[in-house]
């Protein structure tokens, strides 16, 4: 088979690991894999590199969202390779690209030992895009998950940060039973507003601990 990204032949070297473990199959070549840049460990809330708590998160902690998110982690930086990948996945709708990071995402989620809850898409938008990038990654990684939220129609990208902060009713609880320990899953962490709005609704609906895993830190 060929690399999902550059279409060159994949040289798959058989290994002992393949024999004994059911790792998800590699879908991209070593060259393409090298283009992606891992996020370091840092801020205890959002996982951004450097300090114990980053400037953005400490500002959040002075708002009504204090304590909404207990901890979090982003897997990759939003570099050129990731921009290309994300464009092809989300906007060109190349659904199979969900497989590229599914294994890693699944591993990070399982490590939290919490129930996975994807950040949902608005229903109309989902129909338009024909797939949800978060759900399809979870499916590809064979992670069990439950939908607890519904997203009301609002487009994040067209708003300023202040407007985003003020958007309080982006999500509503859909009525399904809420586990105590939840890990929210999203594709991209930009300002952290989306995840905090979701976390807050979940805590108000009975969750005790809410963490998150995001594929990309923008």
């Amino acid at each position, binding site marked *: 088979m060929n690399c999902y990204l550059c279409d060159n032949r994949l040289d798959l070297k058989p290994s002992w690991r393949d024999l004994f473990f059911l790792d998800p199959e590699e879908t991209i070549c070593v060259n393409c894999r090298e283009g992606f840049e891992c996020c370091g460990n840092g801020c205890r809330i959002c996982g951004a590199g450097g300090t114990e708590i980053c400037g953005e998160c400490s500002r959040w902690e002075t708002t009504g969202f204090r304590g909404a998110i207990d901890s979090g982690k982003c897997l990759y930086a939003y570099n050129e390779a990731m921009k290309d990948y994300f464009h092809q996945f989300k906007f060109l709708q190349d*659904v199979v690209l969900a497989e590229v990071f599914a294994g890693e995402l699944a591993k990070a989620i399982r490590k939290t030992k919490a129930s996975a809850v994807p950040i949902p898409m608005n229903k109309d938008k989902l129909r338009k895009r024909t797939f949800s990038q978060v759900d*399809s990654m979870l499916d590809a990684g064979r992670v069990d998950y439950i939908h607890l939220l519904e997203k009301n129609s609002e487009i994040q990208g067209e708003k300023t940060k202040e407007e985003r902060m003020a958007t309080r009713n982006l999500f509503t609880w859909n009525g399904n039973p809420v586990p105590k320990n939840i890990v929210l899953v999203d594709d991209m962490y930009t300002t952290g507003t989306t995840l905090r709005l979701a976390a807050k609704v979940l805590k108000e609906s009975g969750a005790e601990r809410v963490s998150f895993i995001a594929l990309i830190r923008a």
Partner: protein
Amino acid sequence: MEAIREFLSGRIWLRDFTPFPQKEIESAIDAGFIVVQKGITEELQCVRCLEHSAEKIVSYNCAKCEAVCYYCRHCIRMGRVSSCTDLITWKDPLSSSPYSHSFTWNGELTDLQQQASYELEESLRRNRSHLVYAVCGAGKTELLYPPLYKALSEGKRICIAAPRTDVVLELSPRLKAVFPDTAIHALYGGATFEEGFAQLVVATTHQLYRFREAFDLVIVDEADAFPYSFDPALARAVGKSLKKDAPIIYVSATPSRNLLKTVPNQSKIFRRFHGHELPVPAFRSLWNYRKSFNTKRIPEKLERWIKLRLEKNEPFMLFFPTIEMIRQAEPLFKSIHNGIEAVHSKDEDRKEKVMKLRNGEILGVLTSTILERGVTIENIQVGVVGADEEVFEASALIQMAGRAGRSSAYPNGEVVFFHNGISRQMDKARNLIISYNREGGR
């Protein structure tokens, strides 16, 4: 409505992504002018690019249909085609009627060009495919002008398909100058939308996916070039874009054996239009050049060659096997002279830089195979770093060598293959060039 008709005639397009308001498209569909078709057939073939391999036609859970749908990964960059997307074409396409075009070329063909041009016209008269096998700098484009003029005047719709955007960008202004009254569109990834019905289309080969039974003649320029020879889907695209029984003209300096065998009518020109021989590449060893660049040094022999070019004020092209090596080398060469630029396929300023190079505003350029074809720069000297590397097949090496000595003012240019051990492909390229010179001299 007429604008939509002009646009959709011979085209096959995603219903949701036309340059027209959705409402107008809908009413044309309701009126029965537009044929709608699902993007992926029952047999799991992409209707646009005709791909049908299981690796490229993949399934997914579609939230729109709440069912399993399929989409094509092969042509996804032109907007995704899936089993639940609609493709549209105009039912009764426009065809151009014969009318007189202006033909404002006042150059002259050499005897060899003239003969090939006649042979080509003869093939077209009999509606047969034809191969023009002519060395770099033989003047292939010019010999196409008279047959093109004739075909246009007969009302034929014609497409010239080239393997690369750079070639399309060089070719289309030349054609517009020669046929000033003809509607000519240039199509490539990222091109801006042009209104109207073009009788002559200059397009990258990929753009042919978006046509169906549109052309009375397709001219496949540089028929051997990657990605054309590598990708059978592109060959199918050429077939799909043609009207029934319409001929194809192949033009190549390095045709594949397959092409030589399968095209019955052929013209050969092994002499450049100015009558001089092709520069024969010199082989020069450049041991461990990779290591040198890794340790931020330009290999000594190469540095000497470059400095000599700068001293003599000769523009140069230096080809590299990988984009990575170009990136490594760029700052090193810039420290020799700031007027040296790098151009590769992932370069955002590629279009501007190539233009500057053509206008002689750049001293020298470090580049990848994107500039191996279709580029003419007066008095250019050519170096290939790592000519022994696998990416450089004989045909690519011949093309790169063919950049040198193209103008009659400077018919001799230097071509140096810098290598880390002579490869078979290098030998093959050199031997072929020598044999062309021998044949052409007869």
